[in-house]
Structure formats: structure tokens, C-alpha cells
């Protein structure tokens, strides 16, 4: 059912021309994905998806729309070539999954490497009820820390760039631009 919603949302995103509606629908898409992640018991991933996909990404897209415009121009070239490329890529990807073990197959190699240790020992070793959480936050803690550092650095870089641009615009005496949204008092 949720997957049906996902497909319907994706089709609507492709079909619509109003970019504002597309941003709204991508927010819905993220929420549906988060629901699917919760159904798959990956609570942290769902959390990140909801916060980043439905929260931050929607904000960034809307900020971009404010700077550019919210109406998509009709494409000048035929959509056939991109469609062909996408179809071929999808076909190759599907063909590539034929070698993979079936979903949920207990004999798959991924279930014999470190997963038994996670499953059997994580309640005593880490003490977190959710297994995905313990893997993300403890067993792969350094990975998560590295990701956080990367995201933080990117955020600092973007803030530095936006800050310089905002100051210059203010020096020119233009009208109140309020690019960084939310810092406006009141």
C-alpha cells in the first residue's frame, strides 16, 4: 500500500509542471519513504529521511524557488533520448540484481558475516532495544561520526558562501532579502 503511494507520488512529480506542487509532493514522497523504513524496522533511517527529506530538503527547494521562479518551462528537446537512457540504465540495474540472493534469504552471505554477532550480542553489548540503532550508533559509530563531520563541513561551507552573498546585497541597499528564513524577528 505504501509502495503504491510511492509510485503514484513519483508519477505525479514527473507529470506536474508547477514546481511548487512538485516540492510539496517530494515532501510527501519522503514521508511515505519514512513510513516504509519504519515498516522495515529501520527507525533511525526513517528519522533521518523525515527530517532531511521532508524538512530540510523542502525548505532548501522552496528557498531556491523564491530566487528563481516556480513555473517549469516546457522542454525544448524531445524526451525520447533521456527516456531511452533511463530505460536502459534501469534494465541493466534489474539485470544486475539477478545475481543477488532472494530478499530475506537466510543463506545470503550478508547474513553470515557480522550480522549474527549484532543479532545475538547487541542487547548485552550495547543495551539499545533497536538493533539498527545499535549498529549505527555503536558498531559503526566511527562511520556515523565521519558522516556527521562531512555534513557539518558542508553546512559550514554553504553558510560561509551564503553569508558573504547576503552581506554584499545588504551593502548595496537592496530591499530586505531575508534569504536565511527564520531569523527574521517576529
Amino acid at each position, binding site marked *: *500500500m505504501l509502495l503504491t*503511494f510511492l509510485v*503514484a*507520488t513519483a508519477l*505525479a512529480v514527473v507529470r*506536474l509542471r*508547477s514546481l*511548487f*506542487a512538485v516540492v*510539496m*509532493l517530494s*515532501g*510527501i514522497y519522503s*514521508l*511515505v519513504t*519514512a*513510513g516504509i523504513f*519504519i*515498516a522495515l524496522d529501520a*527507525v533511525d533511517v*526513517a*528519522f533521518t529521511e*523525515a*527530517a532531511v527529506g*521532508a*524538512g530540510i530538503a*523542502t*525548505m532548501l527547494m*522552496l*528557498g531556491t*524557488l*523564491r530566487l528563481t521562479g*516556480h513555473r517549469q518551462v516546457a522542454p525544448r528537446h524531445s524526451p525520447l533520448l533521456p527516456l531511452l537512457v533511463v530505460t536502459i540504465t534501469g534494465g541493466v540495474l534489474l539485470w544486475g540484481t539477478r545475481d543477488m540472493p532472494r530478499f530475506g534469504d537466510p543463506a545470503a552471505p550478508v547474513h553470515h558475516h557480522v550480522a549474527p554477532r549484532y543479532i545475538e550480542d547487541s542487547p548485552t553489548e550495547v543495551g539499545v*532495544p533497536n538493533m539498527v540503532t545499535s549498529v549505527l550508533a555503536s558498531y559503526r559509530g566511527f562511520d556515523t561520526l565521519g558522516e556527521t563531520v562531512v555534513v557539518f563541513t558542508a553546512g559550514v561551507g554553504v553558510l560561509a558562501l551564503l553569508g558573504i552573498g547576503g552581506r554584499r546585497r545588504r551593502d548595496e541597499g537592496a530591499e530586505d532579502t*531575508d534569504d536565511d*528564513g*527564520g531569523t527574521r524577528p517576529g
Partner: protein
Amino acid sequence: MFAAAAICILVVMALALARAFLGPTVCDRILAVNMFGTKTVLLIAVYGFLTGRPDFLDIAITYALINFIGVIAVLKFVEGIADSEQQPRPDEF
């Protein structure tokens, strides 16, 4: 009982989704997204009880917070877009 509730919530989600697809004005779509977020919160809560893990309630609460803040931010931005144009035309988004 919980299963029936979950099915009802899924139906409501489908209706909200239809409004988000069709909705001619920007307000329709924002309301649909808000509605969809609320239904996601409810679905997570009901799903938690359905699978016997009421811990999911905490997650549902956080989702509600994200949803609330997100909708307010979206409305702020829409206000900004409408202000930046000379005459606000909310039915043209």
C-alpha cells in the same frame, strides 16, 4: 481493531494524496501535505501497537514536531513568494 484503524488511516492517506495531486491552489497542496504528515504520525503510532511495540509512540511524537515546524516554514516561504511578486496570485502556484 488496530488493523481496521490502520486500514482507515491508509484510506485517508490516499484521499489526502489525491488532493495533493489534483489540488488546484497552493493552499490545497499545503493542507494535503500537512494532512499526510498527520496521518503518517497516526499510522506509525497504530503500527507500533499493531506489532506490539508501543515504543513507536516516541517516534510518532517527533514526527509530529517535524511536521508542525515544516508546515510553518513552508507557509512562511509561500508568504515570501507572494510578497516578492507585485500582485499575489495564490491560485497560480
